[in-house]
């Protein structure tokens, strides 16, 4: 019998397959399907601070256009005492999903200003989340801010949230920090219990016929797993066994999960594969994972985890460069 249990952000999980943030985890009905499909934990889509403010401002503005201007009408909408805000609705959904779930429920937060991160983090904890994933989604497009400024600001957010939060905290990072290994360590030092690697950034395309920005998100492809694999392999030995690591982006199959575990991830997160194939795909991934482990004489995830990190490499940077040279040579040889 293969032991698939793993530990992530505190509690033991039944398996290393976590359903990461997607519309499927946004509503209780679909979240139930994902859990029944075999997810060992659920990550809710992010609560965006901008979304809260935008809706509040836009909805009220739209309803007040023209109010008080005309002689024949004071306003143009029925009186509504109060609207549940985006955060109210998010917390209500979180409570509903938590109430029905038998697996850990991880909320996700994407805020823009230091004060609001802590406020919403507390509300999320009070709503019953088992852990919080802090989404540091920032495009460093301000030429006046140095990398040090950006990193200091992000670390301040992490420590601020940590100080106001009683539940485990993970931080979802982008791969675009100047010195990622250092920043990962600093994030842990600031209070993160785990890291989620990596955030996929929205990259708009252009519709040449409509001359418009195409803002649909491309689902991940399996090759995108290579980036988290590489960095988890580097970071696992550096951060030690107590820090939870999640591989996300490009996890589509059971063998993808095997690779993530081998480089040292505690869990592998799936989104695109579930959006493409449905919640039932989790069972296929789990079956494939189990079959691979049986075929290769692994009895537990614990045994598999971290078996291919760079722990035994004295100089990971030199190792990476050597591998790069080797890869380039192999391509040239094949091409010739």
């Amino acid at each position, binding site marked *: 019998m293969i032991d698939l249990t793993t530990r992530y952000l505190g509690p033991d999980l039944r398996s290393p397959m976590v359903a990461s943030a997607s519309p499927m985890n946004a509503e209780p009905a679909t979240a139930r399907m994902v859990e029944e499909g075999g997810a060992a934990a659920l990550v809710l889509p992010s609560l965006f601070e901008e979304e809260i403010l935008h809706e509040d401002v836009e909805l009220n503005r739209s309803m007040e256009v023209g109010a008080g201007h005309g002689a024949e009408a*004071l306003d143009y*909408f*029925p009186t509504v005492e109060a609207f549940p805000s985006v955060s109210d609705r998010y917390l209500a959904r979180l409570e509903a999903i938590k109430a029905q779930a038998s697996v850990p429920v991880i909320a996700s937060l994407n805020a823009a200003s230091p004060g609001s991160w802590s406020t919403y983090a507390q509300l999320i904890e009070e709503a019953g989340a088992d852990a919080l994933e802090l989404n540091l989604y920032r495009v460093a497009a301000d030429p006046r801010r140095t990398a040090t400024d950006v990193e200091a600001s992000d670390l301040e957010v992490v420590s601020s949230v940590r100080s106001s939060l009683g539940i485990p905290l993970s931080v979802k990072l982008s791969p675009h920090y100047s010195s990622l290994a250092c920043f990962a360590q600093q994030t842990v030092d600031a209070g993160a219990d785990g890291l989620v690697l990596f955030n996929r950034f929205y990259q708009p395309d252009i519709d040449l016929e409509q001359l418009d920005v195409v803002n649909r998100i491309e689902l991940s492809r399996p090759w995108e797993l290579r980036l988290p694999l590489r960095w988890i392999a580097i970071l696992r030995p550096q951060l030690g066994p107590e820090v939870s690591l999640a591989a996300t982006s490009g996890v589509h199959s059971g063998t993808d999960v095997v690779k993530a575990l081998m480089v040292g991830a505690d869990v592998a997160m799936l989104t695109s594969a579930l959006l493409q194939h449905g919640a039932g795909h989790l069972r296929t991934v789990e079956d494939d994972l189990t079959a691979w482990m049986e075929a290769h004489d692994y009895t537990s995830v614990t045994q598999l985890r971290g078996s291919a990190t760079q722990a035994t490499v004295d100089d990971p940077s030199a190792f990476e460069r050597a591998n790069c040279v080797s890869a380039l040579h192999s391509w040239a040889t094949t091409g010739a």
Partner: protein
Amino acid sequence: MKGSQVLQPLFEFSGACAGCGETPYLKLVTQLFGDRMLVANATGCSSIYGANLPTTPWSANAEGRGPAWSNSLFEDNAEFGLGMRLGLDAQGRHARELVTRLAPALGDRLVQALLENPQDTEEQVAEQREHVEALRASLRDLGAAGGGDAERLATVAGNLVRQGVWLIGGDGWAYDIGFGGLDHVLSSGRNVNVLVLDTEAYSNTGGQASKATPRGAVAKFAAAGKSTGKKDLGAIARAYGNVYVAQISMGANELQTTKALLEADAWPGPSLVIAYSTCIVHGIDMATSMTHQKDAVKSGYWPLYRFRPSEGEEGQPFTPDSHTPSIPVRDFVAAEARFAILERTDPERAHLLSDLLQADADERWRYYEQLAGMHRTVPHEQPVEIGERP
């Protein structure tokens, strides 16, 4: 149409809300027909911004020609406009009789030019104006020798030029309070053009629901979201068979909009043009009025079509003018506060009504697709002479 936007608008500087979806249609109508149109304007937004006395956006060109405008009530505007038509027709008939009676004095050439000009094109209308000026000059030359006929003809000579009568108002008028009269006028077969500026609510009085309000929208008198679908006014008018009907949305297709207005003017019977008009009662960013109109069509919320009554046996009067919907209606209405309110106050009901709203759009599209292939003819007598049409 190419060049239509270099024509002089005879509707300008109205007091409408910024981003109003109605006024661009009025501007366009006056660019196309402003120097030969009479407007019967129902009470509502258009009667308010159309007559913020002592100023009015309805203007005249350098020759002093412009729309003749008057406002009547919600409940009788269609009949009011029909009265204009009947009056014009009576005066036109009388003018033609007088021209015929005075033919010996006026000369065959002028009489023939006046009575036989079909005035189907703007060039022919311009020629007719020249003929009328020549007639007036002849009448002046005749002086007292022309007698009472010449004297009377001088007062009605202007009616020899084709003039369009436009019955204009909002959905509160056309779908609701004035519907009985509108139906009566459409059934009359008379040559009137009805332009419905459809904001899907009583805009001027504060956004009360009308029968044009779509299912799921929150409005005054429909605070829990309107539970029934929008009335298909065009379908009722099409049932007569001899009524020209078009559904337009300028932001989606300005060419189809212009074509529809030109065809409505040209059709010698009743015409009904229903124009999607963005409004502050929708709760949208009014700076996006035109792109919002485009999305309304893309989602199938507001399909474009023209129903051109045909006298041919093989005629297919119904022409869909928009493509198969490419975005869900839910995506389109998400940008409107009137739907967003219910999503927040009663999400369960909002989802139910949203599904039904999508079903409304799907069913409407399916129905219109079937109509597109249907042959239908208008039972008719032999063509009658211009000016003698009922």
